[in-house]
């Protein structure tokens, strides 16, 4: 079996938050894969402080999730769901990158260039202006009506939800405890198992936590496209902590592929990082490698997901294959509400 082409049994899809399964957020399972000795073992997320060492640095993405799915109405009266992905590089306020979905969000829907879609309230309409980059699914669109796009999402949006999630959960279910900067279309969900108690336990053990921002776009699991450009911000203080940690021989643990993308965007060939902010189109795979992170906390990803190629860059192909085989055999749960995976290099 290749880890990058497996069949995900429906029973392993997490349909609801851990809290709905009677667990605390940090009670989810965590498979630990250690590339230094090839070991794979099972833990719970709240054991993280014991799996790291004093002096290690945990880097989190503090981007908060938007209610990015809004209802629209086509000229023929058909209802459609609009997934508002990201802003567009170099374009100002009313422009966004969007994806059209069926009215229940479960399927991709086609859009025609020039088409106008009526928005809720007095927000007017959305005009589909162009295909975005090389995507077959993303469109560049202009919002034209009263109020801001942020207000439109705040008053009329719901969190983006794919078919495997059983029902609509409140936006709070899609926020990490440390989320502070709104901007992600989908939850940076690797951080979901963190709780205030767990962060206190990390601090007590001498493990530091530092923020970056990377506003995540839409994943639309049906299409296997590489990740599109996303906005990031690596603050100077975080860059200093990353460099100091690695100089001291301790490990930098990225929470989520979004953090890897942000840190690797500002990494120099020698593995040190510089502060920086802007848009990143970086695509990380085994060929590119990783230079600034020594470990990754992540969820369980769809077969063929581009995330898996980044994971292979962190773990190495054979360890990743072993991890996924073990997770399938031991019934780990997939997706944003699922179980966790700690990869140490």
């Amino acid at each position, binding site marked *: 079996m290749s880890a990058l082409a497996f069949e995900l049994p429906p029973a392993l899809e997490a349909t609801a938050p851990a809290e709905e399964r009677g667990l605390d957020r940090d009670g989810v399972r965590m498979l630990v894969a250690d590339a230094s000795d090839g070991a794979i073992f099972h833990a719970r997320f709240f054991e993280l402080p014991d799996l790291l060492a004093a002096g290690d640095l945990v880097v989190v993405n503090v981007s908060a999730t938007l209610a990015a799915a809004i*209802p629209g*109405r086509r*000229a023929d*009266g058909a209802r459609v769901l609009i997934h508002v992905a990201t802003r567009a590089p170099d374009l100002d306020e009313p422009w966004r990158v969007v994806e059209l979905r069926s009215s229940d969000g479960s399927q991709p829907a086609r859009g025609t260039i020039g088409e*106008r879609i*009526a928005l*809720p*309230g*007095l927000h007017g*309409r959305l005009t589909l202006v162009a295909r975005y980059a090389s995507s077959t699914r993303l469109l560049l669109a202009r919002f034209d009506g*009263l*109020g801001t796009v942020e*207000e439109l999402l705040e*008053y*009329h949006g719901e969190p983006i939800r794919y078919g495997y999630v059983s029902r609509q959960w409140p936006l709070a279910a899609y926020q990490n405890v440390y989320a502070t900067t709104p901007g992600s279309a989908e939850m940076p969900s690797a951080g979901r198992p963190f709780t205030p108690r767990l962060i206190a336990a990390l601090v007590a053990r001498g493990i530091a936590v530092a923020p970056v921002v990377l506003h995540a776009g839409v994943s639309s699991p049906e299409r296997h496209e590489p990740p599109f450009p996303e906005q990031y911000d690596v603050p100077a203080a975080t860059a200093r902590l990353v460099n100091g940690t690695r100089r001291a021989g301790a490990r930098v643990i990225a929470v989520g592929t979004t953090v890897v993308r942000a840190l690797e965007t500002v990494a120099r060939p020698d593995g040190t990082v510089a502060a920086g902010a802007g848009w990143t189109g970086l695509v990380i795979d085994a060929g590119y490698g990783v230079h600034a992170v020594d470990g990754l906390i992540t969820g369980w990803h769809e077969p063929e997901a581009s995330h898996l190629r980044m994971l292979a860059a962190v773990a190495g192909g054979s360890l990743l294959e072993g991890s996924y085989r073990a997770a399938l055999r031991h019934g780990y749960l997939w997706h944003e509400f699922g179980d966790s995976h700690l990869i140490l290099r």
Partner: protein
Amino acid sequence: MSTAIITGASRGLGLALAHALAHRGWRLVLDARGAADLRRAAVDLERITDITAIPGDVSNDWHREALAAAAGERLDLLVNNASLLGPSPQPQLGDYPLGEFERVYAVNVLAPLALTQVALPLMPVGACVLNVTSDAAVEPYPGWGGYGSSKAALEQLSVILGAERPDLRVYAVDPGDMRTRMHQDAFPTEDISDRPLPEESVPGLLELIGADLPSGRYQARSLPVVHSG
């Protein structure tokens, strides 16, 4: 036979709802300011059901008394739909003429409360008060300070009445953006022909009228509940 009072029934959402209820066998008491338009609407509807059409302004006492008297001994549904947008184009709050502002509140807040007061003694357990509001009641749209804040007041009146009168069903319902005269007045220079017709909001209103949903705030085009109150 159930009886309803619908204000602002000569055009737009009020007229569309009157047609739907008439076809479902309701007896209707209709109000509108424009006597000629109301007469025209009534002639159509009289072929279907028992109609009493009384032209007038809901902000007048005697007119409200006449509507309640026409309902008879029992009223099953009161639809406070008549509203006033205010000046077109709508001024910003910093320049809003206070006389106009008072007039908007008189029609959109005081009149629905006053009509509800005369209607309540006629309403049996389970009867329905349906106040038509707007998402301008919730969202900070520039230029909508008069109309929007008056609708916010009407929404709060609705949810408090619902709390005070658990024997009734009291709904504040946002019908959504519609192709109506009022909407054209709000956007005098825009082509609004791509907006849904008010008929598209009627199924949601019928759902509220017919089902046993808790009192609260609803959106007609996305029932069930937005916020229950």
